[in-house]
């Protein structure tokens, strides 16, 4: 399958806008679940406002949240796909900049030291583009995630040691949830990376934080850990917006990687309740949009 890069550029423009306006069904379901079990009156009122906001965004064709985030494009390429990888990246950047100019969207991206905003949502190494490959398939998939700063500013890495064991991982996650409080716009998805190198561990925490609700870690040990943490995280009582109650997190997600015999790294990355993502899938039949 040969990929039409004009189509990719167009889709990357469309994906940014779609992601900002339409919340995925699994997140909406997550809201219904938390709302039905919330026992705190303030928490209940806050969840009600959040659910109403999802409807207002759809009815008024507006953005769910003003934070257009740092744009992330996750690309999956099937092995039967023929594409110029460099040109693909250029098409993604162009689509991202066009969404910003043409909608228009607030460009939330600045140079890290001069703080200069090019008003394109683009800059050095931004949008973030991650590329992965899948076997024997006529498919190119692009997932777009506008990652909000309120949650992204609540990110941590701890290079724990083997002697600290899994207890260090669990304690670190609990302490990060407490440290984040209301700053990460809860209810959140707590993304946890376990293992790897320092950079891989942080990357895994982002993968975990942006995974659909209801999905399970492919590593059975990671799945066990995320189930344990998910079962107790809401007992902390941080609550929606950090104002108390049972809705601190939709879930805790864990992703794992093999690590060094001397290492026990753990990273946490939060995803806010506006857990936005959108997906375009290119096949020989054309382009399809989803989440």
């Amino acid at each position, binding site marked *: 399958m040969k990929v039409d890069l004009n189509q990719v550029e167009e889709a990357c423009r469309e994906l940014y806008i779609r992601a900002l306006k339409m919340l995925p069904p699994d997140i909406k379901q997550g809201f219904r679940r938390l709302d039905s079990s919330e026992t705190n009156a303030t928490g209940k009122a806050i969840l009600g406002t959040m659910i109403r*906001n999802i409807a207002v965004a759809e009815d008024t064709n507006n953005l769910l*949240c003003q934070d*257009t985030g740092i744009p992330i494009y996750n690309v999956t390429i099937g092995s039967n796909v023929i594409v110029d990888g460099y040109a693909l990246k250029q098409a993604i950047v162009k689509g991202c900049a066009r969404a910003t100019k043409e909608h228009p969207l607030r460009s939330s991206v600045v140079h890290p030291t001069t703080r200069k905003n090019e008003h394109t949502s683009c800059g050095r190494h931004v949008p973030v583009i991650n590329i992965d490959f899948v076997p024997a398939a006529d498919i190119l998939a692009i997932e777009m995630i506008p990652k909000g700063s*309120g949650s992204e500013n609540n990110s941590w890495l701890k290079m724990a040691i083997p002697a600290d064991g899994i207890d260090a991982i669990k304690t670190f996650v609990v302490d990060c949830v407490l440290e984040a409080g*209301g700053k990460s716009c809860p209810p959140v998805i707590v993304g946890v990376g376990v293992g790897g190198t320092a950079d891989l561990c942080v990357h895994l925490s982002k993968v975990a934080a942006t995974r659909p609700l209801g999905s399970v870690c492919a590593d059975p040990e990671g799945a066990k850990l995320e189930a344990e943490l998910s079962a107790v995280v809401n007992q902390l009582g941080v609550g929606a917006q950090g104002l*108390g109650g049972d809705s601190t997190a939709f879930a805790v997600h864990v992703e794992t990687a093999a690590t060094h015999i001397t290492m026990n790294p753990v990273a946490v990355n939060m995803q806010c309740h506006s857990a936005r993502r959108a997906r375009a899938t290119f096949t020989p039949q054309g382009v399809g949009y989803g989440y």
Partner: protein
Amino acid sequence: MAHYELNMPVTEEQVRQLRINDTVTLHQTLYGIRDATQIHMFDHGRKTRFDLKGHAVIHTAPNVKWVGETKEHPSGYAPICIGTTTSARMERFTRPLMEQYGVRIVIGKGGLFAASAKAFSDLGGVYLAIIGGTAALETTWIEQIEEVDLDDLNPESLWKFRIKGFGPLLVAMDSHGGSLYTAVNSAAKDRRAGVLAALGVKS
């Protein structure tokens, strides 16, 4: 728990009657302010031409569209999506905002800390919590972007909004030392040991 409808600007007396868990809806005028706005005002010595005395500021950087100055859009900007950012980063600006400009109300999400609580208490101010991430709804409470200052910092300009029924917002920090965040955080820390025990963590 009382509800107040406030026409902006307000007096110190009006602000001091507000207590945590009260709700407030604002009318007429609201100013938008953010990290860069305040860094430039308080660290780089820049001044705004706006009179913020007795007013409310909201921690925001909106999505806007330049449409040119018209009667409907006197600032030249049409609002697209206006929401609220995390307040914690702007903690150190609460006192200068109040002392130098007479600001009485700070609106944001996630709460502020001890230095702001002290400023609210000393000078007569409150923090109103808005629900973060509900910008589509918040935008429907804004009628117009009346004026803009320090616009070279766009989108972190100083925005003057005309509002109608902006709220209800929750009084989360008051001028009497009350803070819902302190209460919730302290209770959550007390539950830490129980949660770690439930996870089988050996102390």
